[in-house]
């Protein structure tokens, strides 16, 4: 009892919430029979700084309350104080396992708001980098998931493959993680022949590597016994909670924004959407593994179809001019100064634009009042919404399975906490 009096306000709130889930229980009861424990924020299996407060009866989890916000950096508020261009590097830091996909998602929202037409080549390049970063993101997800349930080898192998993607990004964008590659109206730099060669080489050898780690896990008895039937998320609950991405498709809902509302040129590409009906941790794993294969299929097709042409739109009032022209032409120089100092000034209005990120639906809602700064900026981050499923699916599971469940939900706290 003493202990709870001295607990700080936020702890008291969580404890109240835990107790509220079972109105018959008093604090005395709880101390008598049940235990309230903390998991995280400094726990290696919580994928960053997620904190879970769990009420246990023996080893069974009675209820769980996730506590978020340890990595909160105020990205939505910060956006209101910077121009649309300046915000691009911040999108790298949302879902840091798939930075390119975030870059693409953000600039697409701004382009929709400002009505900028993007050249075809740039759109194909965006698809290539977005899918590559989906592969990278899923490799991290699958690898760390396997690590969480005790398979260290798979983790090493997926990270080895992912490293090659980071090297490709290094070549394309100039940085491994903090890519900041897309620009409003296009992409920062064109793909050179060396980069295309690297992507092809990677994809060719990736097939074997993928098969190898699938062999390691898919028929692994320990892995399957550990995950089958664990953390079942029923279809209706998944929809009601607003779960998106692989977690939703693992529950038997075929919803992928790339198909439902095609953006870029996904409607010209042939790919499948893997769906599993079981809704348990194993199903979520299988969705990711299958998506890895589908993504590499998409990249192959994009490389074949990659058209020639400019990579930046030609719109002097909204898109940064080419460097050559800034050096030599007065008008472009003035536009450069105007754009940097005052921003792109999109028309008054609001826009919501969402894309299918590795973790789910990443959406940006931007309200513009006609100035260079957004008036209101909202990020619909998939990890944040997916985490809402935790209290439901952890209920009545063993405490050791909570680790597996978090791994299968695959939250990235940079995105959940914004």
């Amino acid at each position: 009892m003493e202990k709870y009096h001295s607990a700080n306000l936020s702890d008291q709130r969580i404890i109240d919430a835990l107790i509220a889930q079972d109105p018959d229980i008093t604090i005395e009861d709880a101390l008598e029979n049940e235990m309230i424990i903390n998991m995280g924020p400094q726990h290696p299996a919580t994928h960053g700084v997620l904190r879970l407060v769990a009420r246990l009866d023996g080893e069974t989890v009675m209820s769980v309350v996730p506590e978020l916000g340890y990595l909160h950096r105020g990205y939505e508020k910060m956006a209101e104080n910077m121009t649309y261009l300046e915000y691009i590097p911040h999108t790298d830091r949302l879902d840091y396992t798939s930075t390119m996909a975030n870059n693409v998602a953000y600039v697409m929202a701004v382009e929709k708001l400002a009505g900028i037409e993007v050249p075809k080549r740039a759109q194909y390049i965006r698809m290539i980098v977005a899918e590559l970063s989906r592969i990278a993101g899923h490799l991290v997800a699958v690898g760390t998931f396997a690590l969480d349930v005790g398979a260290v080898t798979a983790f090493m192998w997926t990270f080895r493959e992912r490293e090659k993607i980071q090297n490709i990004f290094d070549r394309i964008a100039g940085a491994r993680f903090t890519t900041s590659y897309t620009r409003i109206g296009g992409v920062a730099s064109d793909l050179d022949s060396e980069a295309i060669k690297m992507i092809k080489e990677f994809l060719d050898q990736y097939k074997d590597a993928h098969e190898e780690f699938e062999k390691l896990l898919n028929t692994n008895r320990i892995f399957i016994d550990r995950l089958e039937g664990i953390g079942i998320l029923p279809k209706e609950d998944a929809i009601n909670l607003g779960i998106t991405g692989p977690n939703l498709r693992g529950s038997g809902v075929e919803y992928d924004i790339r198909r439902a509302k095609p953006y870029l040129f996904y409607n010209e590409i042939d790919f499948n959407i893997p769906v599993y009906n079981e809704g348990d941790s194993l199903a979520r794993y299988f969705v990711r593994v299958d998506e890895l294969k589908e993504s590499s299929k998409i990249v192959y097709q994009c490389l074949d179809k990659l058209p020639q042409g400019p990579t930046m739109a030609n719109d002097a009032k909204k898109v940064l001019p080419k460097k050559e022209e800034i050096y030599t032409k007065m008008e472009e120089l003035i536009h450069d100064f105007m754009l940097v100092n005052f921003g792109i000034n999109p028309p008054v209005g609001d826009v919501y634009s969402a894309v299918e990120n590795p973790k789910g639906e990443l959406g940006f809602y931007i309200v513009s009042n006609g100035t260079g700064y957004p008036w209101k900026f909202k990020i619909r981050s998939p990890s944040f919404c997916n985490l809402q499923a935790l209290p439901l699916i952890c209920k009545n599971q063993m405490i050791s399975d909570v680790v597996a469940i978090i791994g299968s939900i695959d939250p990235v706290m940079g995105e959940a906490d914004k």
Partner: protein
Amino acid sequence: MAVKKRAKDLNILEKLYIPEIVKGMTLTLKNMFRPRVTMEYPEQKFEPPASYRGRPVLVQEQDAGERCVACGLCSRVCPALAIEVQANETDREKERFPEKFEINMLRCIFCGFCEEVCPEEAIVMSKDYELVYTNREDAIYGKDKLLVPVEQLQDRIDYLRNFK
């Protein structure tokens, strides 16, 4: 709907532990003879491509000093507010020069925006990624550390002209 059955039904052989363990060990052995994927860092150095964004540096011409005209555009665009420029006048052809040009390397996030907006090709990203300091004051790079002769930056400048 592309609902698939997951390949999980194990046959009797896969259900036994011993053969699985032997299989695992063979795999381990096989991997021991694969090429190494890591790099022995301080002995072996990573040589970045021209597209690499290392620390931002100021371009120094052979005899004319820095190219920068202290327009302040880089410091305006910098998302991390890392750059401080103070302009002054000079008798040289360009008329203006930065009296003080500082980049706080603790703030810099290597985004490359300064390079992208500079109208004079005066600030570019170098290949230097080894940044160490023993205290915070050392992390504020002044003109003495930022100025780099143009010859050393030629491939980045070529890259900018071709791909940006």
